């Protein structure tokens, strides 16, 4: 996350020169680019491309709006785990507006926002956390006396691209749960004419935000996304298929009640409500908080927080998937998981079915903002 006074990156300085001045070795830099290439699912061969693009990058301006939200997503970004250069990439953007951290208040910061939007028109990256309440003229969230809707519409006009961080900006999250008293919606429901990605989750892992910004700086466009505008590098895999407890599922080894003998052996949480079979998320791969653990790793079922409408479609959280509306395919998975004899092979088949369900849905394609100067294409929009 942004560290205001540490290792500033001058306005017209290339990242390559900047890193050199900061004393980051070429080797460390390439290691970082390699880990980013892996995280982005591009393979090691993409490392030189990332390195070249990042080195030539000029300090980009970021404007961060916080709308109807709980600030958990900001906190999550503050916990990004890449200890050196990963932070750096976020640290060194020119973060011209950010409620939680900025020094001034009131008219002073509103002026800073207006100045930055004017100066960097058409060039800045707009980051949004929080939803937009539309009911009753948008009166349920106002900042500086203006509605969230007015503010985000104005800021989006001059933005080059939008990163919507967290379930609120994605689709409205908890305030949009039935009966959605304030008419809360995600950013993509208000802004329809800009490239946008949804960093899904309540909150998402901060590292996904880092990687998305690295991708943007490297290729001058947002990463390829799934049908719900979620980056494939993070949300392309089902938790169920990446879960260390998958072997227990396939073997029919289930926790039947919290803190039972099976729980104390770390068996599968499917029978106590795990939504991993219906959830696309990087949790088991990236892990949380400097790769310390993740929800299933700490013995609690996944609640499906990266999926749209999860507060209604994934509840009751402790209900077993077949009893939850919306996932008939998991009836099959459930049957199969219990059948020891055919466990492994059939589990894979069930996985294929679930993946297919996702793939047949409409995919959203994003326009390319700009061809990278090196003339190299990214793995964009092909899914």
């Amino acid at each position: 996350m942004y560290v205001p006074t540490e290792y500033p990156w001058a306005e017209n300085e290339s990242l390559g020169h900047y890193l050199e001045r900061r004393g980051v070795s070429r080797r460390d830099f390439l290691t970082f680019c390699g880990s980013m290439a892996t995280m982005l699912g591009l393979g090691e061969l993409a490392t030189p491309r990332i390195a070249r693009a990042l080195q030539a990058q000029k300090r980009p301006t970021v404007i961060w709006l916080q709308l109807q939200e709980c600030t958990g997503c900001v906190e999550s970004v503050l916990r990004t785990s890449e200890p050196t250069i990963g932070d750096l990439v976020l640290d060194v953007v020119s973060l011209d507006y950010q409620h939680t951290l900025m020094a001034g208040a009131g008219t002073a910061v509103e002026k800073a926002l207006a100045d930055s939007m004017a100066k960097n028109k058409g060039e800045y990256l707009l980051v949004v956390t929080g939803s937009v309440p539309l009911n009753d003229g948008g009166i349920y969230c106002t900042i500086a006396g203006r509605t969230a809707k007015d503010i985000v519409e104005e800021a989006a006009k001059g933005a080059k691209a939008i990163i919507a961080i967290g379930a609120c900006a994605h689709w409205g999250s908890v305030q949009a749960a039935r009966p959605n008293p304030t008419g809360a919606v995600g950013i993509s429901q208000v802004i329809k004419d800009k490239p946008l990605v949804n960093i899904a989750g309540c909150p998402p892992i901060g590292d996904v935000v880092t990687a998305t910004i690295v991708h943007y700086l490297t290729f001058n466009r947002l990463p390829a996304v799934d049908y719900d505008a979620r980056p494939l590098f993070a949300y392309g895999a089902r938790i169920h298929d990446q879960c260390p407890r998958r072997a227990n599922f396939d073997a029919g080894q289930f926790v039947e009640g919290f803190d039972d003998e099976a729980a104390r052996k770390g068996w599968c949480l499917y029978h106590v409500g795990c939504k991993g079979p219906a959830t696309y998320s990087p949790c088991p791969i990236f892990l949380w908080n400097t790769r310390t653990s993740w929800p299933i790793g700490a013995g609690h079922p996944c609640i499906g927080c990266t999926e749209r409408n999860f507060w209604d479609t994934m509840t009751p959280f402790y209900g077993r998937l077949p009893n939850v509306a919306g996932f008939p395919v998991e009836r099959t998975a459930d049957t199969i998981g219990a059948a020891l004899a055919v466990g492994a092979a059939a589990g894979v088949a069930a996985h294929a079915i679930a993946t297919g369900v996702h793939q047949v849905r409409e995919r959203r394609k994003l326009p390319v903002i700009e061809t990278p100067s090196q003339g190299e294409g990214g793995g964009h929009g092909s899914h």
Partner: protein
Amino acid sequence: MAATRIVVDPISRIEGHLRIEAQAENGRITNAWASSTQFRGIEIIMQGRDPRDAWAFTQRICGVCTVVHAVASCRAVEDALDITIPPNANLIRNLIHGMQFVQDHVMHFYHLHALDWVDVVSALSADPAGTARIARSVSPWPNNSESYFREVQNRLKTFVSGGQLGIFTNGYWGHPAYKLPPEVNLLAVAHYLEALDWQRDVIRLHTIFGGKNPHPNFLVGGMASAINLEDTATINAERLTDIHDMIKRAQRFVNEVYWPDLVAIAGFYKDWAAIGGGTGNYLAVGEFPDGDVRDVDTLYFPRGIILNKDLSKVVPYDQNQVKEFINSAWYEYSKGDDAGLHPFEGETKAKYTGPPTPWTYLQGEKKYSWMKAPRYDGRPMEVGPLARMLVAYAAGHTEVRQMVKTVLDTLNVGPAALFSTLGRTAARGMETVLLARRLQVWYDKLVDRIRNGDVRTFNNEHWDPAKWPAKSQGYGYLDAPRGALGHWVQIEDQKISRYQCVVPSTWNCSPRDGQGVPGPYEAALMDHHPLVDPERPIEILRTIHSFDPCMACGVHVLDATGKLITQVQVQ
């Protein structure tokens, strides 16, 4: 000279959306209004849900104090269903909540509050050797060297000369209210940066027990993180050692960086010990049970009320005395605007009656906030670290009394200094020191229990809804980093029929009640409060930030009939 009308919106470096309006005359604030400008309606959303899911919904009220609503919700449901959680689960919750306090208070001090007192630009002209001398005189922290501070200063110079100030753009640098010498400013800037790294390490305690932070997972009846020393996927010796090391690192940073910095900075701002007191009534519901949460005698921070700054007695707290009023809030009651309703009878119709957006002024409006006005026996109450320390002090809490005495002696001020903006900030530091110490006690107890063969973390007796009574209700209290919190739940036919929260920032950011009595923010801003330059209202930020506002927490709604009726009238 006529009063100048002032609007500060947004108030930055807080959680959520807060607007302060004021009037000032001859360098003093004469009147103030606090408006919460966000509304989400989470309690309405709770109705008809499985009560075992409530912790996750209410947790999303706030992502900064990310565990407090979850724990309060579990306690409310456990109270309704008569569940006693195993001692290990209580210790784990104390560890999680205790670390939340420590991490949150340190981040508040450096990242949300410090820039009210610390002039970043002034640090450019500091002598790093002088900074190192000052730092070494108050702390053995290993980074207290001249070369370290020089390096931080050099980075700062490059940053400022680069012209892109980012979040420091249009700060109030050079304001005459900044009193620190350049060397102390440099010290604070260096630790602002160090604290960013520190916080992401120690908060991993949440990840081990709850799977992630923000928003770790909880469980009605206990905790889901099973203990088994013989398994790789559970709480085992490796995980416990990691936790122990985090506790040690938390203690060290608090004792060698945060607390010495706070005391050093406070020494330059003693005039703020006579500013910003305000309401004078303080409420603590108490926190950190050592057994069943309903046995309030075991709480580490005791429960009670201080009235009119009288530290000679602690008034007992009775949750039946809590009522909420809407005279100044954009809601209507079936019994009219002057009624006060207890949370178990609460009702809400959102009814916006303010001016159309964009607003110019809300002052002069009868209603001006989405925050209701909670009152205890008719009185506004300040909640938070100062309330907890005052109640504990008055109740004779040994550690708190020692801590308070040390601070007052060090700063050479009397007990009246506590009722102030500076008192609030100092109290937050005091309880952080005490809780960092306390974490070790809970850790040792947990390890002792495991050593003696008790690994239970969950009570499954009432997990099955078929065993629940047809109707039940429960009260879950919790004293959160920002103050007294209450969740009230009513359960009917296995579903939530009513849910209500009264939250720290609802108490503190309360608007005026029917008698025109202002809430704690407002009263504090009207208590001997300077405002030198209305264009650069740094003094307002000092006092408001001393409360550590958490606005998303503060606004909540409930409808008695289970359905939302919203009427908006834009005049």
